[in-house]
């Protein structure tokens, strides 16, 4: 039995797919999400084998969400769309699994069988984005979509990754690794990424360490290991 999460912004579409998957008796839907942000949370939490992912969703599209997942912990993805010729073409070309809505049970059966048999993990890099325009975050009881250019720095802490804009801080489901790869932020410390444009000054300390003062006046540690690269990036070496 494969564990799956269904991510679709339309309630009826989710229910229908869950029902049809239930009938296949080979997939168990453990969770469902009505948007990509929720989806991201659930994926990180439940680590499903498969996700059924709608393309058109509010704020963060399915493709964007996929771009926010670490490749090493990536579940298998079955895309679904009601009408998106462009996306369908990409799926066809890369032999990714996809479903057209309304879902044909016979087609779903085939897809599921393939998923059960296959051991290989497809590489979704061809369709994912190399740059994230915005980062979804969860603040106090609300969801924030923060534009990448507004972020001063990001750091990992006890309960996850924090995104800091200078005015506010919110937790994100994205790992530092993804943020480093897909945003212009660079690493200055094992637990810190910094937006070069947010650096106000760098204070060099003894024994090869340093501290960054951001535009909003917050200080970030710079470790010996990353100082050289930071200087290179700033063009001061």
């Amino acid at each position: 039995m494969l564990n799956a999460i269904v991510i679709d912004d339309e309630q009826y579409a989710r229910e229908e797919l869950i029902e049809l998957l239930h009938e296949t008796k080979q997939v168990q839907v453990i969770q469902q999400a009505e948007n990509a942000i929720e989806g991201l949370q659930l994926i990180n939490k439940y680590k499903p084998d498969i996700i059924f992912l709608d393309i058109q969703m509010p704020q963060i599209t399915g493709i964007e969400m996929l771009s926010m997942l670490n490749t090493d912990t990536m579940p298998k993805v079955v895309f679904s769309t009601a009408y998106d010729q462009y996306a369908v073409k990409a799926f066809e070309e890369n032999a990714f699994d996809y479903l057209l809505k309304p879902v044909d049970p016979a087609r779903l059966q085939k897809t599921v069988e393939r998923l059960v048999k296959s051991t290989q993990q497809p590489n979704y890099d061809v369709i994912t984005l190399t740059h994230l325009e915005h980062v979804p975050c969860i603040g106090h009881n609300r969801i924030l979509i923060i534009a990448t250019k507004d972020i001063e720095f990001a750091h990992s802490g006890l309960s996850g990754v924090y995104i800091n804009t200078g005015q506010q801080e919110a937790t994100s489901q994205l790992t530092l690794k993804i943020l480093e790869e897909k945003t212009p932020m660079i690493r200055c410390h094992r637990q810190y990424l910094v937006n070069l444009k947010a650096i106000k000054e760098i204070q060099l300390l003894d024994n090869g360490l340093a501290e960054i003062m951001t535009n909003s006046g917050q200080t970030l540690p710079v470790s010996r290991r990353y100082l050289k690269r930071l200087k290179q990036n700033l063009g001061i070496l």
Partner: protein
Amino acid sequence: MELIPSLLQQMCVYLVFAYLLSKTPIFMPLLNISSRWEHKFSCYLIFSIFCIMGSYFGLQYEDAIANTRAIGAVMGGLFGGPIVGLAVGMTGGIHRYFMGGFTDVACAISTSVEGLIGGLLHVYLLRKNKINYLFKPQVIFLITLFAELTQMAIILVVAEPYQQAYDLVTTVAIPMILANTIGAVLFMSIIEDRKSIYEKYSTTFSQRALRIADRSVGILNQGLNTESAQTIVRIIHEETNVGAIAITDTKNILAFIGIGEQHHHANVPISSSIQQAIDENRIIDLNTTADTYQCKVNRRCRLGTAIILPLRNGDNKVVGTIKLYEARRKLLSNINVSMAEGIAQLLSSQILLGHYQQQQTLLTQAELKLLHAQVNPHFLFNALTTISAVTRREPEKARILIQHLSQFFRKNLKQNIESVSLREELSHVNAYLTIEQARLTNRLRVSVDIDPALMDIKLPTFTLQPLIENAIKHGISTMLSAGKLEIYSHKTTEGTRIVVTDNAGTFVKNKEESTGLGLKIVDKRLVNHFNERSSLQITTTKNKLTQVSFLLPTTATTNTLTTNKEN
């Protein structure tokens, strides 16, 4: 032989007379060959005069007259055809007959025959499609020579006694042949000159008009505005060389070019005389002694005369004016005044054409949009997905949804007519909303509150539906939290506004994509259907609210109310 110089002398006087006449409009009909009876009649009249003149200018010679009558007769025939030729000949002939002498009958007959000869050549050349040969000197020379020889032969045959006739002919034949042939050729060359001057004149005139027309094509497609007006005045100024030109709409001067540019500015209100031309819808000529132009901006302005011509659209409504100025002490020449009338006419028709084309484009765009909506794949597949899911759980609801879907598509297909009642538009919207509500479930809440008294007002087809589709597609469906769509009517002093709001607040102005185009079309059609004040008003508070509204003018409201009462 002493007759030759005297007769040639007479011929010269005759030709001077012809030359003078050629300066008058009487000669105009002779410049073209035409089969219209007015033309024939004036040919007859003119050449009969010349024919009779020929007799008077003749020289008395032994009870006969050596004359240049043949010129009139032959030319009459050449220009007017055999009937006119014969008529001219007979008129000249009968006149000659009453002058008496032993050759009276012979001359009467011969003159008629000469007219006929000219006419026959006219017919011959016409048939051969070589009517231009009529103006060739050689042809004139030969035909007149032939006519004169015939005349001499007729005199010999008809005139009694034969001996006297024979003597006469031997004496007058050479002088008359010479005088008449040379005279006819010279007469024709006078006409020819006149003709070429006239042609040159009208060619430059029409070339100029054509150049203006050619260069101004399409400029007014977008209507009369500062930009198009400036281009037009520049073209006209370059082509006509009048002192200065201004184009105005009904309120402001849109463009000015020429003398006095320094103090005649665009975008200032129009003068009282232009206002008068607009109000009275007529040409105002500030070129008369009683009414001259005086620049009100600058006392020392060199402009002294002006003519104002209204520009009209299709309903003969004045939409603006064109004003041509000329410097003081330089009257607008006639060409320019009639040219101005032509230009005003030209611009008016271009404005009309532009207006018409705009309407046509709007209609086409609306049709395209309609076509697009008829097969809007996103909507259809989304709806089908929803219905497919609903079927399992709530078959009854699914049935209702399918009915709404079919109703929506049926209305789409039917709505190729220009306008619908608000009631119909709302029912179309309702079908659409029912499906979208099912699809988005708790993410879309809708409230509709429209004054029932407005239901019969006609508005352009596809006015409300695109606004609502836009609010959902680009607004509410992109929201993570619950969306709220409100449709309501709101009374104002000008009429009633129909308002559509969503709480997404994601509307971006001037976005160059299909939605922007969709709203643009709705806007244009509203303005066309009602008036300028009914244009779409859009306000956005980012991430909070987008409000789109348009005005149903009081006129539309009251009209419907009265028809309701009558019903």
